[in-house]
């Protein structure tokens, strides 16, 4: 029982990070039909921005602020202006291919110009355990979960309780009409790119202390977030949350109770089942799209 609770909490913690990354996926898709195959690398990069600052002797907290700002700039603004905007005119597929190229470019750049080795990364959250109902649970997992919940709650408040949030939703749901009533659609799309950059930077800070900073660490994470988004429903923020958490928990429980060897296969199995029986995802709505 104690083991199960531990597995659940660490599963939820991993799942919460998947959810952060998956939410970014769905936001980009909803507002600009961008499928970002470099999303995993978007999580890998901020850690290296921060490490670069740390190696230059900048204090930890300042390095994090620096890393987040650089992420907003490069993974948000520059990504949109330099890659998505010019490619979007040509359709969804060219963007998908361009982001795949970007993902390779990012990995190889880190390997070439930084390091090919796994680098340790300091944690925001102190090590140790807390006692919950008589069970020792890692403070790391609790901390990750709490920070992710805070971020998602803040995002939800922004999207649902503020005028800017409503405008962002309007721009995603019906851009033509949004423009007609005076919503600055382009700016709203930029905001979603900045939010995505913020989410991946947070995910990076939370996950890198656990899995170390390595040029290839985005591969697994990007795939997990992609699966989470599809399982939950690609066009719903809450779908991404549910998909992420579900995947994290199933991943952890599966590894413990079924087989560690098939750990990588279990999410794919889940993906196949969902695509077969509910292709729009658990919480998604079917989209009509002419191909």
């Amino acid at each position: 029982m104690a083991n199960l609770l531990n597995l659940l909490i660490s599963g939820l913690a991993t799942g919460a990070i998947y959810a952060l990354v998956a939410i970014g996926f769905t936001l980009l898709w909803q507002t600009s039909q961008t499928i970002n195959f470099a999303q995993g690398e978007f999580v890998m990069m901020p850690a290296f921005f921060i490490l670069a600052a740390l190696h230059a002797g900048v204090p930890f907290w300042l390095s994090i602020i620096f890393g987040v700002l650089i992420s907003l700039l490069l993974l948000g603004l520059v990504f949109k202006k330099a890659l998505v905007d010019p490619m979007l005119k040509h359709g969804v597929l060219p963007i998908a291919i361009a982001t795949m190229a970007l993902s390779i470019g990012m990995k190889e750049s880190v390997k070439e110009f930084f390091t090919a080795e796994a680098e340790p990364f300091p944690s925001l959250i102190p090590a140790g355990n807390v006692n919950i109902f008589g069970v020792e649970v890692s403070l790391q997992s609790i901390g990750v979960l709490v920070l992710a919940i805070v971020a998602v709650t803040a995002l939800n408040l922004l999207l649902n309780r503020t005028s800017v949030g409503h405008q962002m939703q309007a721009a995603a749901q019906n851009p033509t009409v949004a423009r007609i009533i005076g919503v600055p659609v382009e700016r709203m799309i930029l905001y979603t790119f900045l939010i995505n950059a913020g989410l991946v930077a947070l995910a990076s800070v939370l996950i890198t202390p656990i899995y170390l900073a390595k040029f290839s660490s985005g591969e697994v994470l990007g795939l997990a977030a992609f699966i989470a988004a599809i399982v939950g429903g690609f066009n719903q923020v809450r779908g991404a949350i549910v998909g992420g958490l579900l995947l994290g928990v199933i991943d952890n429980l599966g590894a413990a109770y079924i087989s560690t060897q098939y750990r990588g296969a279990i999410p794919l199995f889940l993906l196949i089942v969902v695509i077969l029986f509910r292709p729009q995802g658990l919480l998604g709505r079917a989209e009509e799209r002419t191909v």
Partner: protein
Amino acid sequence: MSDTILEIENAVGGYGKMTILNGTSFAVRQGAITTVIGPNGAGKSTVFKAIFGLLKLREGRILFAGRDVTGWSQRQLIEAGMCYVPQGRNIFPELSVRHNIELGAVAAGRSITDMPARIERALDRFPALRAKATRQASTLSGGEQKQLEIVRGLLLDPKLVLIDEPSIGLSPLLVQETFAILKELRAKGVTVLMIEQNARSALEISDYGIVLELGQTRMVDTAARILADPRIGQLFLGGALEPAS
């Protein structure tokens, strides 16, 4: 003409290489309801898009309230007092009805301070919308959605309302209700420029009519005279006005 609020001068434009507007020109009188009629492909919706800056004209200009507004952004046009209600469903299905309406004030930014009161007044006028204010807009019926679009468009007190096919998909009763709203607007001094497939009913509540054909203005006259013109009857009103009938 001092009582002209909108003037289209020799508009030429279209989509890609296809020219739809072929020198369209007409003027719209302030405080009146004017209906644009014409066969499919005459350029009715296209001229509305051109007026609202959604279609770049190759030639010609648009004058609104004495100013040349050719090439203005939607936001600028809204601020100048124009409002456009396009054909079909123009709601944000997953936002609540109230939030949909509130978005109508976006273009004004913070310059309007009595927005909550305005929204309350609008909801008072349309009890069906008030009853569903917190529900997703996708739960509204077709007629209620049109009402929502009109309410949203009126939030900033526009001088000119461009409304494209307001009756499409509505029951006859709802068409009458929608037309009643347009008449209310006219009573308040708002100018309405409307496109209607349902040309006869639309002209009956209109002051003026404009007949477009192949992207050119064929006729601009009072609605009564257009309704009485046998040629128009045959061409655009389904032959209902032929002398024999």
